[in-house]
């Protein structure tokens, strides 16, 4: 087997890992802060991608503005849904949040299929990021390097914001003890809305990043939530760092499996999830409660 193939699959794994990381990070923030298992995380990823497609085709607005506008739009929609619907199930069992976001996912996806059908629509790679680098042992497309770089920057940035800044301190406090945090003058309900917006914006951002790589379709992201769920379980529910590290590792392992044992590559993530659940039920970075 040529090293070309191995490195090629590793890059694919790294790209997949990048998307897993951005999506799982948002998912972990939302489940930690709001206690909502957001099944619609993949839908906001699709909305991010579709948003950039619409901006380009209806308004002639290109990739770079879309990178900001599309996640922002997804976040606004998410915050509206949080205020009007999702916040009503906080006091109920987790299953209600899961069912509600599942319903939202079906509704949004259904609406897009109705208007746009399921066929993929191409989205061009921005001019500045066409071409690639010849590394000698392999060819690395510029856009793929850009995706990995951005995922690393955003993951580190989010981790830093949560661990080291004032808003992050407040988010952690609200995650740990929401009632008491309110008694310290902090408007926790507003903070939850904001946190949901951030989690959704990360998914939307991943969607814009994905648009030039995968074609844009209402179905994209539909099955990603299953992988995200596995990542968050393996990393440890609510652990931001755990989600990031696990997402990249599982992406890479999945890529390697494609070389070594292609038939099983789709299963790798879930086999690892099973093993981790058996050995360390709280996840690799989680704490036993």
């Amino acid at each position, binding site marked *: 087997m040529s090293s070309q193939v191995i490195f090629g699959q590793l890059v694919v794994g790294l790209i997949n890992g990048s998307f897993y990381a951005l999506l799982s990070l948002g998912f972990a923030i939302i489940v930690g802060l709001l206690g909502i298992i957001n099944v619609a995380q993949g839908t906001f990823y699709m909305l991010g991608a579709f948003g950039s497609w619409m901006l380009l085709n209806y308004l002639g607005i290109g990739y770079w503005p879309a990178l900001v506008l599309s996640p922002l739009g997804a976040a606004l929609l998410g915050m509206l849904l949080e205020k009007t619907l999702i916040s009503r199930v906080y006091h109920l069992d987790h299953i209600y949040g899961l069912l509600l976001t599942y319903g939202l996912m079906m509704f949004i996806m259904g609406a897009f299929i109705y208007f746009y059908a399921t066929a993929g629509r191409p989205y061009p790679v921005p001019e500045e990021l066409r071409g690639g680098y010849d590394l000698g042992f392999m060819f690395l497309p510029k856009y793929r390097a850009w995706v990995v770089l951005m995922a690393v920057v955003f993951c580190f940035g989010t981790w830093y914001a949560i661990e080291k800044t004032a808003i992050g*301190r407040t988010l*952690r*406090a609200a995650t*740990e003890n929401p009632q*008491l945090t309110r*008694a*310290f*003058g*902090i408007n926790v309900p507003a903070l939850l809305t904001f946190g949901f917006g951030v989690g959704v914006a990360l998914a939307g951002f991943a969607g814009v990043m994905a648009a030039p790589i995968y074609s844009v379709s209402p179905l994209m992201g539909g099955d990603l939530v299953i992988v995200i769920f596995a990542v968050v379980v393996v990393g440890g529910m609510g652990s931001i760092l755990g989600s990031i590290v696990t997402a990249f590792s599982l992406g890479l392992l999945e890529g390697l499996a494609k070389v070594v044992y292609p038939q099983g590559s789709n299963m790798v993530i879930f086999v690892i999830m099973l093993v981790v659940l058996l050995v360390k039920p709280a996840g690799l970075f989680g704490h036993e409660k």
Partner: protein
Amino acid sequence: MADALSLAIADLHAFYGDSHVLHGVSLDIPAGECVTIIGRNGAGKTTTLRSIMGLIQKRTGSIKIAGQDVIAAPPEKVARLGVAYVPEERGIYATLDVTENLLLPRKVNDRGMSIDDIYALFPNLKERRRSQGTRLSGGEQQMLAIARVLRTGASLFLLDEPTEGLAPVIVQQIGKAIELMKSQGHTIVLVEQNFRFATKIADRHYVMERGRIIDMIPRAEVAAKATQIQQYLGI
């Protein structure tokens, strides 16, 4: 000092689900006074403080802070009026270090203590400022719970058993902090089992039993009513 807050509670009822815990509590505390609420375990002292703070959803009656009724207000709104809460369980955050715990409460105004002044008052906390909140000893956690609310500029303090289970030297330090609040003219509501500690600090004592206030003892009458107080406390 003119900005201390008065607290007037009338006919307060509070519930946990269907369980009716407070049965018409009334308290009247002028600005700048220090009172205690004493009574046996389960009398409803903690529930009273939590009701004031807006942490009990189901409550009726009236709770006026400086004349403003907060019976329907959410906790953050009560806090922003200048009410500080030190919960019985201390409420130190494990995911925040000591400094982050201190910086968490939102400032009400700029009249609170600076971080340096707070660390001067509690030198132990300064030494441990990078430690995770729940790695502290019980005494240090209690100091942190009090230190945390000194920064915000609040002027009505609700303290729930701040000396519970602590060594005498630490009780002394907590006492010093409360004396400081008093000397600054703040209003203090102190729930306390340690009656000797309470008598040293408070102007008056409310006695609570089964969700009701059953007696009020001014400082001057404490000595004369010693036997009765012991009975109230079940000692």
